[in-house]
């Protein structure tokens, strides 16, 4: 007779989907919770650097697009927390872990947005990198996560095009606008490459995640895919990728590029980035400022419940 765990392994081996009520190893569950939570946290922390430019967006059309984008990120946060909740944790717990600094979010959001062009660069590079990371997750072995990712990826590819379009407009605008675009690429290029995590040789969680069908490609593979996809787009924009070592290799059909400074990545992950404190403090403040509202909603709901009973 098959044990419930055998059935888990059989599903994984057959590239099928694990659903919430299926048996799963505790490590699988924990890995997924950690990853989905980190992903959800990244969505909501990621609202801040872009939200920083809503009030100052230089045209009403761009303002509307940006508001919608940041709002989409809140929505992604909702789906992802819901996906995590199918694994037996709840959102409030996960938020507490985030606020206590015990769960992470993507380090890319610890860099500041200094000009309007950064909004273009984030859409183009950061959402671009996110898509490269996330498209394989649409085939992740855990059903609720895979389905959330399908929806997320669809919206993100839309965001990525919008980011590219912002930069395209700047690159075809005044010299000041073009310079702003180049400056944004200069600042966001390396942090974007680091979004794929440490190099494979130093990557800790990867092997088991691959075996479980959570992860499908190595960090370095995905990073290469991102570079190959992005460099030709930079050419279209007429922007220079800030890497003197960047060369197209005719033999492999790939770009060779300089590795980012992972020491910086480790520092930012540890909390030592330009905006780590600001991002977390803003998030915690919003949460604490809203405590009385959530309490009121709960109290009101309880009173209605009583009235009905």
């Amino acid at each position, binding site marked *: 007779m098959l044990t419930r765990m055998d059935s888990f392994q059989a599903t994984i081996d057959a590239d099928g989907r694990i659903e919430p009520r299926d048996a799963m190893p505790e490590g699988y569950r924990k890995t997924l919770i950690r990853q989905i939570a980190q992903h959800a946290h990244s969505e909501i922390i990621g609202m801040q650097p872009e939200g920083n430019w809503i009030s100052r967006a*230089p045209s009403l*059309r761009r303002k*509307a697009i940006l508001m919608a984008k940041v*709002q989409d990120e809140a929505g992604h946060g909702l789906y992802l927390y819901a996906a995590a909740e199918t694994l037996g944790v709840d959102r409030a717990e996960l938020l507490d872990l985030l606020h206590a600094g015990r769960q992470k979010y993507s380090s890319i959001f610890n860099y500041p947005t200094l000009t309007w062009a950064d909004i273009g660069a984030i859409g183009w590079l950061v959402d671009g990198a996110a898509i490269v990371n996330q498209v394989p997750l649409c085939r992740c072995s855990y059903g609720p996560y895979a389905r959330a990712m399908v929806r997320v990826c669809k919206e993100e590819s839309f965001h990525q095009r919008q980011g590219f379009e912002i930069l395209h407009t700047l690159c075809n605008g005044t010299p000041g606008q073009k310079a702003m675009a180049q400056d944004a690429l200069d600042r966001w290029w390396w942090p974007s490459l680091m979004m794929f995590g440490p190099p494979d040789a130093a990557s800790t969680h990867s092997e088991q995640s691959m075996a479980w069908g959570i992860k499908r490609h190595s960090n370095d593979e995905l990073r290469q895919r991102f570079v190959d996809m992005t460099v030709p787009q930079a050419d279209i924009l007429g922007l220079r990728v800030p890497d003197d070592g960047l060369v197209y290799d005719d033999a492999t059909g790939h770009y060779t590029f300089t590795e980012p400074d992972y020491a910086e990545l480790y520092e930012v992950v540890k909390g030592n980035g330009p905006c780590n404190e600001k991002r977390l403090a803003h998030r915690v403040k919003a949460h604490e*400022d809203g405590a009385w509202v959530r*309490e*009121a909603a*709960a109290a009101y709901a309880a009173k209605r419940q009583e009235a009905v009973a």
Partner: protein
Amino acid sequence: MSDLFDYTVRLGDDALIAAQRTAEWIAAAPQLEEDVALGNIGLDQLGQARSLLQYAGSLDGRTEDDLAYFREEREFRNLQLCELPNGDFAHAMARLLYFATYQHLLYEELRTCADETLAGVAGKAVKEVAYHVDHATQWVLRLGDGTEESHRRMQAALEALWPYTGEMFESDELIGRLAVAVDPAPLRAEWERRVLAVIDESTCSRPEASYQHTGGRSGRHTEHLGYLLAELQHVARSHPGATW
């Protein structure tokens, strides 16, 4: 500039400035659902602003962005209610209740006016603001009848903003001259009926005020608008003539 331009700008500025304040809540709301909801509401307001300012601009050869980014504070015609700083979440919901209920009554009439464009904008907007009213109503009830603290805050917010509601119903010569304009004065009774019904149900007491602020329709604003516009306009004004 024509009366139609002036009138359309009033409505457009209300929506634009309201959207700017609503957007300040994004990534700062009490819960994630509310980030989404306020994002929606802000987008609705901004959409209304754009339609109205595009139309106004079309009447005198300007774009929506010319009007939003290159007018001075004294040329803005929005209600002071829309420009006040956000305050706490109770203030946000009090403002939304007051403002959206007004917008709802206004758009309901405007959608049958003789100006096709205005009627069209109003017809779309009336559905949006009905949702805003509903959203605000739910929260005023929850906060008013939630905890002691939320009741206190809701009451304070309802009172703090009440002196800025009279301005919504002011008639003036422009309204008198322009046939398509909705005279807001007669909307007041129904507005009060609706708003007070929510306040009553929320267990809050009805606000009173010995003074009603005025001036927005003639460009006399609170000292808050200048800062809002500095932020709104700074990038655009730093790159005159640029396309975005």
